[in-house]
């Protein structure tokens, strides 16, 4: 039997060499770092916690990619912009004035809830508009066409918000009761990280309930399974797809608030890199699967925070932290080459992959 790709043999050999050399580099770097032992256990613990917090953010954004991919088989390239638009707008109009008037420090919980809801509303609004204008008319077009409009939408929103709210970095206010650390297992965790992790867990549980237990969730799952049959069963497919975008964008809106809490800065370009990384997370976990997005986000976050110090430092690479983004992109490429179905994903049919 000849395989799908004519003379696959050379290609396979090449890919094997790539795989082997990466494994060798990683193991060599890890061993060298461990022998060198530059960090205390406490520092490793910090890396770990930061990785989990970062991974939670990726997971929340990745949900949006996974849900949309599940129903439309389309990479919603503009999803990073949904994430950015919510928190960027909310910071300028609500968070910064609220902090200046002192309201945010007096009522941090109420303030944060207002910020979260506003951020969600803006993200959802942008998502619904994008879906209505750029994606819905192209449902039947060749598959590259909606991808191209998604890229266009992404650049459009970035620069729209740049023009609307200014191109400079805006500081997200620091909330007095969230500064400082929280003791846990003999180490100190930043309170913001605790908030991020807890909020993510709550959101994920809520989402799981929504998708698995409610009627709308059932509709989303059936549309993901087969649009035509779902339509025959009396499900309004267009409406369900819009709801899918709404859910994904709401998650992204919350992720935006958490991101701003951790990094305390917002700007028009903040959606791009987290967007691509969250997409990586979604693919890593297995695109189309919600637990996959969560697991993928976590794994990617951990790799990114521990990776540079673990494999790259041992190789004596100068300024190894510069290569943090390379780790994420390399992982994306490697997964897509060697395990396109991701960690928990099913093997997708040719048509979907």
């Amino acid at each position, binding site marked *: 039997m000849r395989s799908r790709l004519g003379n696959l043999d050379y290609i396979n050999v090449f890919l094997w060499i790539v795989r082997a050399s990466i494994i060798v580099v990683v193991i060599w770097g890890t061993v060298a770092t461990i022998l060198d032992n530059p960090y205390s256990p406490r520092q490793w613990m910090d890396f770990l916690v930061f990785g989990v917090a970062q991974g939670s953010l990726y997971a929340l954004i990745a949900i949006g990619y996974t849900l949309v991919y599940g129903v439309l088989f389309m990479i919603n390239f503009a999803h990073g912009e949904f994430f950015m638009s919510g928190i960027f707008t909310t910071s300028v109009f609500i968070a910064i004035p609220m902090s200046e008037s002192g309201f945010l420090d007096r009522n941090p919980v109420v303030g944060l809830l207002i910020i979260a809801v506003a951020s969600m509303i803006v993200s959802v609004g942008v998502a619904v508009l994008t879906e209505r204008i750029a994606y819905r008319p192209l449902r039947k077009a060749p598959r590259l066409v909606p991808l191209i409009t998604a890229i266009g939408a992404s650049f459009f929103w970035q620069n729209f918000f740049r023009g609307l709210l200014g191109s400079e970095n805006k500081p997200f206010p620091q909330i007095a009761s969230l500064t400082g650390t929280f003791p846990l297992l003999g180490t100190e965790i930043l309170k913001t990280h605790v908030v991020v992790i807890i909020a993510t867990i709550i959101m994920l549980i809520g989402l799981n309930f929504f998708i698995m237990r409610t009627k709308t969730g059932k509709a989303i799952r059936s549309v993901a399974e087969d649009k035509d049959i779902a339509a025959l069963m009396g499900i309004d497919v267009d409406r369900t797809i819009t709801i899918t975008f709404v859910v994904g964008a709401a998650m992204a809106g919350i992720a935006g608030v958490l991101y701003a809490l951790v990094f305390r800065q917002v700007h028009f370009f903040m959606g791009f890199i987290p967007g691509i990384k969250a997409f990586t997370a979604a693919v890593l976990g297995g695109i189309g699967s919600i637990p996959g997005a969560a697991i993928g986000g976590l794994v990617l976050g951990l790799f990114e925070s521990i990776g540079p110090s673990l494999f790259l430092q041992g190789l004596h690479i100068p300024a190894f932290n510069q*290569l943090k983004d*390379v780790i994420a992109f390399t992982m994306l490429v490697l997964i897509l080459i060697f395990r396109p179905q991701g960690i928990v994903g099913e093997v997708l049919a040719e048509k979907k992959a």
Partner: protein
Amino acid sequence: MADTFRSQLRQALRSGLIAGVITLSVSAIGMVRLFAERELIGGAVTMGQILIYAPTALLVSLAVRKMERNAPRVLLAGLVAGAVSALPLIVLIVFESLVDLRQFMPNISPELVEILDLGLGPAVGSLALLGVMSLAGIAAGAFHILPDHIERPILQGLLWTLVVGLFSEILSGRLRDFFGAGFARLIFTGKALRPAVALVLFLVIIGAGLFWSARRERVRQYISALPPRQRTRLRFGAGGLGLLFLVILPLLLGSYLSEVANNVGIFVLMGLGLNIVVGFAGLLDLGYVAFFAIGAYSMAVLTSEGPLGLGHLTFWEAIPFCILIAACAGIVLGIPVLRMRGDYLAIVTLGFGEIIRILALSDMLKPFIGGAQGVLKISKPPFLGTALIRPEQFYYVILAGCLLAAFVSWKLSESRLGRQWMALREDEDVAEAMGIRLVTTKLLAFAFGAAFSGLGGALFASKLTSIFPHSFKLEISINVLVLIIIGGMGSLPGVVIGALILVGMPELLREFAEYRLLMYGALLVVMMLAKPEGFWPSAVRRRELHVDEEILAIEGASALEGGD
């Protein structure tokens, strides 16, 4: 009948509202304010005004297009839509007069409001705006009432007069160099067209349009009636004239415009390359800038006279190596993505592009390619004892590269390999079943695309004589993608048109450069929705993207036959 008129009116209302929201958005992001600084016709028309009225005029004319030519109704619809489109702006004017919005939205400033309310203050200005917008709507409707053969020349006259006005700063500069300042001042007021000249120009273009539309059929018939030998000769003659024009172009353009032409040329090169990958073979590559960077860095390292230079080759010796290195990189990066399709391919290639940029920026490769400080002192191409330093001279190097690339692309598109790529684009499985070797075919597409881009990068490095990692951002890939989509995927003239519009315009007009990416994004969406085959489509592509309509037409026809 009344019912359909009501629904048409509702449609017009909605179009007006959408136009209003668009105008509000372009005002709020600062475009109107910035564009208002550019005068098209002295003392009368600025680019900002065009930006305010154009969405209304455009959407109204789209909305009334389907209505029958019933003057009162069309005009009424235009009036309604125009008036509605003023409402969002009036809200903005009133709001701004009550609250200072600048702390939130830096571009909503008193200056903007002054442009919108025509300097008449909030109350009177709002009414004036309402009136003017209604007039714009009525005018757009009125165009629809005119018969086609009159409407078209008037539109062309309007459009070309405005285009000449848009470029008046540059044109007047060129006229001054050739015919003296007096002549230039006769036509232009320094930065804009003189109103009287604009009127004359408008009438001349209308006249020419009417003349041409009367003659077009006859000329076409005359050409198609020629014997084949003569027709070929005619075609060669036209090609020769075009070539001659390209050769003497730098003399007409002068130094600054030649530099712009050089940038356009580099993007034409990259566009031709990406056209092979995306347009012919249908592989959406978003990391195309990687090969551009590889070509540029190869040229830099091979020819630099600075401390990072390795080969100390001359430009001409280095060029083949740059192309070869880029082509090899194309193959190496192509192998892992052989099995991916469509969107996954796009994201992975985007990842490659970013990896290359981050690596170029990193301290790890600093000893070889300079990190953030880049590579300096890259040599210019020597020619007959002198170096081609000035843009007018370098133009010929780029022109040669573009002509070579265009020739290769054209030959490829007609070759066996080109047809294999197109088969691959249509359907991979079927292509394989027809005996096309997917691996070789795909890798060749990547290699050719990368080679063109590498050549572009090499020329870019030599043109600037120093390169830095920040020149190789994702934006470049997107820019190239947009230009081939605007021109029409798979179409060679389309690439040139796309590059002229998308690279040339922002270089010449600062305000376009400021909002370049915003417009690219919007253009991508609008093009995909309205004209996915581009402005100058290749025949194959046109058929492919409108396949559904054709099938519908055929089915409709057969259904009719069945009915008979």
